[in-house]
């Protein structure tokens, strides 16, 4: 079966979710491009967008409409060529409207899992629960006579377990998009030992056509991305406990968040990142990972407590941020949750005191956004962390320890065999998490000397 034939009938499971809807979008665009080639025009291309929730599917179509329009506007020069034989399409607006209609025409939203029985390719982006995933994949596999390929978007569950438990015979691999798939460049590719090589070849072409950067990770729970993120979070959580000897919970959250964002030049602080991903999603990932790393404590009672109090984070369908560790106003933190008081405390009341305790940032400081745009970023980072090293303030000390721990986690991923090489770990953190530098670096090890 050729690449094109494989993509003639595709199903996306969990199509109404944040990850699923992005996968639907990218795959439908790729299928539309294929369908417009002269040799493919007589053949229908079908993408079954499957979700258990009618409400989620209702949100999917407007999302696709808006996103396809953006893609069409950006690619108008090429699209005018694609539609050059259509005499009735003259202005850019005519062509864009036709392209949107053509891509949407490929997508069939449905709540019926049976729709996947005819597909040759199944993308799975459903809940991070191995039992649920196994049941669904196994059901499709049993009823589908095409021996379909399964691409799982799991961010944590080992692929070989899904393969074995659902009886897929090596027709599965992990193809882990980052959130949101339409924007994030990174895809983690996870192959189980049993994964058939044809799937890997296909994945390479598919990722290339989607203009994604594919980084291979070994088949260990959490892979590289969450392997780092979860341990980074657990360290930060430990820091809250340590700091609470001196300051309140909210103050500790603020300070650690600021250290992990501003002092370490990251796009957002660690607790803001948890809110972005969703506290409940973090909890699920930890639950999945925990049994595979028996020597480590990968459990956070704090997350359990917050979730039990209804503090969950995540995003609204329009992409705006729901409240989690922080309360958000116009997508910016405005208050911090206090589990004892079961309510939010205004950031303004504690900010300046905490900033004083942390001390100033290095004088050469520039925010993350400016740093990643620097032509001589490496030179800047060297100067910046050189200055940070010389500082003895609380903020600098916390940042140095935090950076060292992040490095340690990176090296741990290597020694545990999760990552194949250092550069893969750094690539995941810089492309998937948009860090200005990878965790395996010498900025902090020099500090420790």
């Amino acid at each position, binding site marked *: 079966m050729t690449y094109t034939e494989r993509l003639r009938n595709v199903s996306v499971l969990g199509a109404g979710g944040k990850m699923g809807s992005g996968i639907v979008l990218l795959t439908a665009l790729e299928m539309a491009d294929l369908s417009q080639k002269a040799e493919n025009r007589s053949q229908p291309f079908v993408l079954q967008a499957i979700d258990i929730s009618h409400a989620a599917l209702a949100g999917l179509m407007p999302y696709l409409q808006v996103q396809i329009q953006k893609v069409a506007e*950006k690619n108008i*020069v*090429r699209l005018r060529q694609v539609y050059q034989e259509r005499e009735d399409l003259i*202005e*850019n*607006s005519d062509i864009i409207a036709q392209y949107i209609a053509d891509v949407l025409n490929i997508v069939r939203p449905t709540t019926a899992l049976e729709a996947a029985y005819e597909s040759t390719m199944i993308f799975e982006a459903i809940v991070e629960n191995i039992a649920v995933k196994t049941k669904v994949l196994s059901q499709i596999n049993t009823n589908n006579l095409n021996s379909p390929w399964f691409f799982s978007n799991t961010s944590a569950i080992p692929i070989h377990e899904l393969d074995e438990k659902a009886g897929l015979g090596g027709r599965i691999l992990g193809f882990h998009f980052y959130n949101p798939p339409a924007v994030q460049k990174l895809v983690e590719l996870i192959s189980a030992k049993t994964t058939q090589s044809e799937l890997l070849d296909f994945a390479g072409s598919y990722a290339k056509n989607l203009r994604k950067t594919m980084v291979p990770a070994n088949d260990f729970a959490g892979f590289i991305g969450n392997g780092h993120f979860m341990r980074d979070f657990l360290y930060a959580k430990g820091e809250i406990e340590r700091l609470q000897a001196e300051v309140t919970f909210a103050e500790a959250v603020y300070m650690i968040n600021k250290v992990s964002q501003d002092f370490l030049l990251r796009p957002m602080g660690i607790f803001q990142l948890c809110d972005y991903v969703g506290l409940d999603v973090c909890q699920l990932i930890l639950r999945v990972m925990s049994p595979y790393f028996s020597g480590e404590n990968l459990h956070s009672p704090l997350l359990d407590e917050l979730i039990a109090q209804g503090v969950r984070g995540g995003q609204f369908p329009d992409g705006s941020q729901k409240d989690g560790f922080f309360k958000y106003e116009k997508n910016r933190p405005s208050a911090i949750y206090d589990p004892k008081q079961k309510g939010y405390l205004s950031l303004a009341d504690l900010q300046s005191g905490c900033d004083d305790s942390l001390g100033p940032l290095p004088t050469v400081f520039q925010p993350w956004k400016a740093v990643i745009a620097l032509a001589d970023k490496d030179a800047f980072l060297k100067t910046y962390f050189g200055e940070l090293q010389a500082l003895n303030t609380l903020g600098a000390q916390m940042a140095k320890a935090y950076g060292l721990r992040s490095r340690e986690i990176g090296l741990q991923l290597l020694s545990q065999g999760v990552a194949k090489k250092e550069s893969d770990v750094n690539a995941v953190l810089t492309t998937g998490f948009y860090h200005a530098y990878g965790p395996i670096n010498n900025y902090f090890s020099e500090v420790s000397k």
Partner: protein
Amino acid sequence: MKKMRRKVFMTAGYNTISMGTGRKEFHPKKARPGLEEYIKEAGQGTLKMIGGAQAVDEGVIGNFMAARFNHQGNLTALIPTIDEGLRWKSCTRVEGACASGGLALLNGIKSVLAQTAEVALVIGVEVQNTVKAVYGADILAGAGWYRGERKTGHAFFFPAKFSDRAGVYFEKFGRERTRRALARWYRNAIENARLCPSAQEYHNKSLDLEALAMSEPNPRSFVEHLNFYDCSKVSDGAAAIAIVSESGLKRIGCSTKEAVEVLGWAQVQADLTVPVTEAFRLETTERAVKQALKMAGITSADLGTVEGHDCFTIAGIMSLEAIGLCKPGEGPDFVLAGNTSRQGSTPFNTSGGLIGWGHPTGATGVHQAITIWEQLTGKAGDWKIDIASKRPYGLSVNMGGNDKTLVAIVYRQGQ
């Protein structure tokens, strides 16, 4: 017309800000002024300087595509919104693509010559940021021949037309030198605009402008021979000026010194459906300028300053040759030698031109006349240049479409 049968003056020019990307106030998702606000601001600005609406006999408004950008036609009926005193007076709307402003000026001039008006209020306006650039390109493509050219045309129709011209020019006269001259043109435009608070590029803080403008064009996302810096931006804005006779000047209480006199003008029309054959030159511009200079009885060597129609940098360079300031193919050298900079022999586009001040299409012709009026009467602010007493003349060249509709006007300070 070989000579003016009556003296015609322009005075009391008023520009709104040229609004769009680059201005600090501009945010694509926030509400902004529309046609009504721009027309009112510019019109009232001029009325304030000429003693109010009662002094005005006639109104003329130039606009290109409000029907599509703003879903508004019948713009002539917006003139009385400027002032109640304009209601029941004679008003006209004219359209000639990006030369709509120039055509509006000519309508005012002709009315004064015909003695149907002693004082005409002339306004140009365009509000284009109502749609994204990709759709704006469709609307602006209306300045080309829709039935004959649009389907086969580029997504960015006009940038591609001038990119094609640039390609031919590069081929004939050399790319490297011309490319550097285009970058210098951009730098001059931005440096001038930085002096003029109403300019769209007034807030531009880029350090190495020429290096920026040397960016390689990207035909995958834009056009083959031009980059974004080679193009005037999408702008909203209006400009207004009074066109008056000698008795009109007395009526509005304005001395001749505070006005510019129109010494010559030309409106030359090419055929929209006839393809350009010599893409390296602007033939219609050449014809219009020649006629206007002849009528004024001067040559291009007498020009102290020029407002040229640099919708694209390459059009700026080619206009130098069309005006006769240098020979064909020597435009790049003329620019690189500094002649068109504000300290040069013939300062061009001293408030930024279309690239620097902005290009609210229907307003551009009027804005050009205002800049000349400001320079020749000493009313320019920080963007004032020295006008040599031996060369006291100004020229404005306003182009509609791909060198199709041309207006050229020659001015001198009132004596």
